[in-house]
């Protein structure tokens, strides 16, 4: 990850900023220049809700090199309360506590530190809500 691209996506990764179509109300995460639903081109910034449920998930045993120190970890697709879906890593839970339907909340975490010459990546993960 090189820094211009990293910095551009910060509002999404640090604050879950999404784009809401001012014409049809469709919420896009990340924000888009063109509404996928009505093709309009004006948006207002909204923050995503933090709570949601796991739609599907997996435990990754063979990660790319830069995630190797975290294996095994759980990736999941989470549907938030407003219907927006995110791909996330699950934070602080053993794999067998996560399943389809598990309730989670989005939290801010370090994702990985990568090689020495790259930026340290931060962003969102999801944490299981104790039942």
């Amino acid at each position, binding site marked *: 990850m090189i820094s211009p691209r990293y910095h551009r996506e910060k509002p999404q990764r640090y604050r879950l900023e999404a784009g809401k179509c001012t014409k049809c109300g469709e919420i896009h995460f990340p924000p888009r220049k063109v509404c996928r639903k009505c093709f309009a081109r004006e948006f207002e910034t909204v923050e995503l809700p933090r709570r949601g449920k796991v*739609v599907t998930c*997996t435990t990754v*045993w*063979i990660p790319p090199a830069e995630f190797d120190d975290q294996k095994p970890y759980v*990736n999941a697709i989470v549907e938030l309360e407003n219907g927006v*879906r*995110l791909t996330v890593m699950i934070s602080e839970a053993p794999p067998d506590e996560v399943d*389809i339907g598990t309730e989670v909340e989005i939290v801010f975490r370090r994702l990985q530190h990568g090689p020495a010459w790259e930026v340290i*990546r931060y962003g969102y993960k999801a944490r299981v809500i104790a039942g």
Partner: protein
Amino acid sequence: MRDVAVIGMGLTPFGELWDTSLRDLFAIACADCLEDAGVARDQVQSAYIGCMTSGLFVGQEHLASVLCDYAGLRGLAATRVESACASGGAAFRAAYLEVASGASDFVLAGGVEKMNDGADATYCLATAADQEYEAYNGVTFPGLYAMIAKAHMAKHGTTPQQLAAVAVKNHRNGAKNPKAQFPLEISEKTVLGAVRVAEPLGLFDCSPVTDGAACVLLAPVEFARKLGKPVVKIIGSGHATDAIALHDRKDPSTIPVVALAAQRAFKQSGLTIRDIDFAEVHDCFTIAEIVCTEELGIFEPGQGGPAAAAGKTARDGEFPVNTSGGLKSKGHPVGATGIAQICELYAQLTGNAGGRQLKNPRRGLAQNMGGSGGSCTVHILEVEQ
């Protein structure tokens, strides 16, 4: 549009070919193809070459120039085409349309990928997913298909044994394919006991990292009829895209782009899946073959797993799938795969499939998919009788 035929094919061995460079792989497949077709190289007017990411795998772009140069085809119109793992299928479609348009008579469709050259294959392949909103969060390609498998299992009761049946069957077919990377039979026990990659997928649920190239030559059907060989026509071509991120599609137990591409190919040909005798299906992972056989309409939704386990997709089953060994056993040099599928159709339809030959097949279908279902091509070939 003019009717178009495939008139020759060339395929390198698939595998870890450390001694052979990207450009040499293509040159070999191209020369074999032109020899098979019996067409002189200066008759080839145009080429489309599928390759996913030579920039990342070997640090070389401008592929149409370097590959045609090293294949001895200097001067022709040539273009590289990319749609991740569907690059080959997209190249085939572009070549088909150029001959169909009448602009050119002899057009080469090729595909190549050099994956074993020192680069991190997991990273390179992840560029077929959304780099910023999928890969950034740690998800790998096996991880995406694992999430598809998990959803399919939850919705339909698909089992690990059914996934394993796909791998066992494809290796049984691949064992009869002299070009296959892993031409060996495996047992269900081997698949289920293998090291885990991304739950519920183990190593033997995944296609390998492969070097290889494939080419076919296209020409007008009227020309093909003069050759005294079986005439293999392209009777349907469908192509579609969908959202790149799996989370941006409604139901992760489905891959709708496959159904959409198939629907377009069927519409063009005026056929349905019932008119097709066999198929090469994009089994990058075992679950992919199961879902794709459902999306293609070979089986009802949820019946892909039971059908595989019951042997319905075996070479002697009711609908043979991946007689070549599929991506799983034959290997998956991503940019070459879509063309290699066409090669298998051509070999079967011309009666040249050796130990894995089907009995007089008339129509075959090739389905080639990019990423986790962000793009797909479907082609239907028919031999004139």
